[in-house]
């Protein structure tokens, strides 16, 4: 199919030949822009003149705001990426997917049980999973998204929560899913169910809270707060340090 494709579309401005350095051409929703090589998609867009409000958040791969889809010349593959984590490439045709349309259902976590029934009652579409794996292929975090959904269907909340732990909620899987599953919120729910009901509670935290409530540290704290700067420094410098 590559041979049939026209090499490039859109006129090249004659004014762009400045400042040396190699430039590449990217197509933002079909419109060509000349940008320096070596920038991320996000920075390339900004260089090109876009001042973004949508489609940008933490700029470090944690928030999932900058999801994009793109195709490379000569390929049929519809690729996905985070714009802040991916280099712009020559000939890339791209579109921002800053939002996956879905409303978060409300629930009372206190009233749910950590089982598949609770999840499916809120997200009935989960059982529609066809095991097509389009979600996994779309995930810029490289998560086994399909396996996580399948784990829910069979009632393994713990497996699902752990498989979906690194999810940054970009929504690309949900955009690609033929079963129209709202992965982002499904995963949020299973992680909370697991964290709240299946992970054992920390007893030492509970004990420390009791001590604090009983006023065990109040006197020592008062004393410390009244120390002179010199005494405080001395105390600080002489404290013992636990090995890592």
């Amino acid at each position: 199919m590559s041979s049939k494709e026209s090499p490039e579309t859109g006129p090249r401005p004659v004014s762009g030949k400045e400042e040396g350095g190699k430039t590449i051409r990217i197509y933002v929703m079909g419109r060509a822009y000349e940008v320096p090589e070596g920038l991320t998609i996000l920075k390339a867009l900004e260089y090109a003149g876009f001042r973004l409000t949508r489609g940008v958040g933490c700029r470090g791969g944690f928030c999932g705001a900058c999801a994009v889809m793109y195709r490379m010349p000569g390929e049929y593959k519809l690729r996905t990426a985070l714009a802040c984590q991916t280099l712009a490439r020559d000939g890339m045709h791209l579109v921002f997917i800053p939002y996956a349309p879905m409303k978060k259902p409300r629930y009372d976590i206190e009233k749910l049980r950590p089982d598949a029934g609770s999840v499916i009652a809120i997200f009935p579409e989960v059982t529609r999973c066809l095991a097509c794996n389009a979600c996994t292929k779309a995930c810029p975090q490289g998560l086994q998204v399909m396996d996580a959904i399948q784990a829910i269907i069979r009632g393994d909340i713990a497996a699902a929560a752990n498989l979906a732990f690194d999810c940054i909620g970009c929504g690309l899987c949900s955009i690609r899913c033929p079963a129209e599953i709202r992965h982002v919120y499904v995963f949020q729910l299973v992680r909370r169910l697991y964290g709240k009901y299946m992970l054992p509670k920390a007893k030492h935290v509970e004990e420390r809270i009791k001590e604090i409530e009983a006023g065990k540290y109040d006197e020592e704290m008062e004393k410390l707060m009244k120390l002179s700067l010199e005494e405080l420094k001395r105390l600080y410098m002489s404290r013992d340090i636990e090995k890592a």
Partner: protein
Amino acid sequence: MMGLVYEGYPPEMREKIRVVEETREERLGQQIPKLSLEEREKLVRKWHPDYREDTKRPVRIGPNKGQVIYREVADLLESWPAVKPGDVDLDNIDYDVDILIIGGGGAAASAALWAVYSGVSPENILIATKLRFGDANTVKAQGGIQAADRPNDSPVRHYLDTIGGGHFANKPELVRALVMDAPFIIRWLEDLGVMFDKTGEGEMIEYTGGGASRRRLHAAKDYTGLEIMRVIRDEVWNKGVNVLEFSPAVELLTDPDTGAVSGAVLWNMEVKAYYVVRAKVTILATGGFGRLHLAGFPTTNHYGATADGIVMAYRVGANLRDLDSAQFHPTGVAWPEAIRGELITEKCRSLGAQLVNANGERFINELEPRDVVASAIIRECAEGRGIITPTGACGVWLDLPMIDRVRGEGTIRRNLPAMYRQFIRHGIDITREPVLTYPTLHYQNGGIEIDPWTHVLRPDGTPIPGLLAAGEVTGGVHGKNRLMGNSLLDITVFGRRAGITAAKLVKEMSGKPRISLKHVERYMEELKRLGVPENRRAPVLLPDYRGERVLLRKLDLIDLAPI
């Protein structure tokens, strides 16, 4: 993953790596003595942005007139309002609520939940945030959250560590609240369903953090901030609290007579319309200032970290403190460009990674304090011994393969999995290749002064009625330097306290507050006297990274909202 695979270093950089490889055996076991206190002092004074004269200046206006602070912050404080008072119709109120929470990070979400727990109806709370709810520094925190809850630890010890780490400049009663509330906060998060790292019996797996004398960092893999944020955000949505996204506050509103804060003007960034919000209590939780790129540094911060909260609070008379210091993390990523400014954890250096300049030489003992190491790296680059990247940044090598060389094959994969993943994504294998590093602007140590129940204070110590603040926007909790893991704690402890205080204030208040922009008018008089150029306006809301060529040709013919 259906993204393209990166190729790693370009040939010209690969060429420069050779010297690191060639000198590795030589450097093995080589001792670099630690500097004397005087030498340290000299190095830091010459190169660290906190000590350099040219990075700061006295602010010439407002409650802290004369105080020396970072230039970029001073410029913002000496700016005209983003919205002219006359352009806003205050007679038409768009949202009339009990509590307005400005910001969409961990401090904001905690405040909203605790206000609800304390009896305020969710419909009477409005969260207004700049980007999406959760687009914030909070989601970027990886390391963990501190709380002294192990038997060999205590809140008192946590107090001492925090005060010492802050160069004894912290506000003691804030530190006390921080450390005493900490275990309670951990239990709260646990109950909400945060997946903390635990042993099979439920004991928290706790890690060490720089400056802490006990292991007390609670983590959720290396996504601690993300995990906390998404859980509390989910709960805020569940409770039905109103959230307005892409609608930053651009100015606070005040009672024309008493100066009490009574709401804010919001600006919808998408359709560029303003909204007037009247509120009985307003909580500022707008986070830090990394995107101001103090002294030209890259940053670890999110896109919206532009100090808006400080600017707005200053105009209503808030006292600002410790804004002469900022936290620069010595090892930010200098290459690949994609993750420039992001963190390279300190753990690399404790495991034996060496810093190496362009000549293949070590230039500092890697385990010196953060500010000392950062200064040395800055010096190497300034004096021409750094490595220039294809995008024009400068850095020095962090020889990570040294770790495996010294401690045995597999150490990196075992101890630094997140780091390994971060770089292999870009085709760089840190078990075989060094990485390029340069200091990065990390954290706003200072900010708005508050009391332990988050009331915003004036320079004379009296509270500004109606205004609370929590999180990175505030100062005093961390003094001149924050310890790792104390900030996630800060935002939940003081976010919670802000929610509780707000609920109490709402209950005490009868009738609706009055709103005006009178304080802004007064501030503008001062600006005029000072002769500040009219085009300098704040808050800035977002940094501008557009290419120069485009800006030169920019014409605003019609006003289009970008999609």
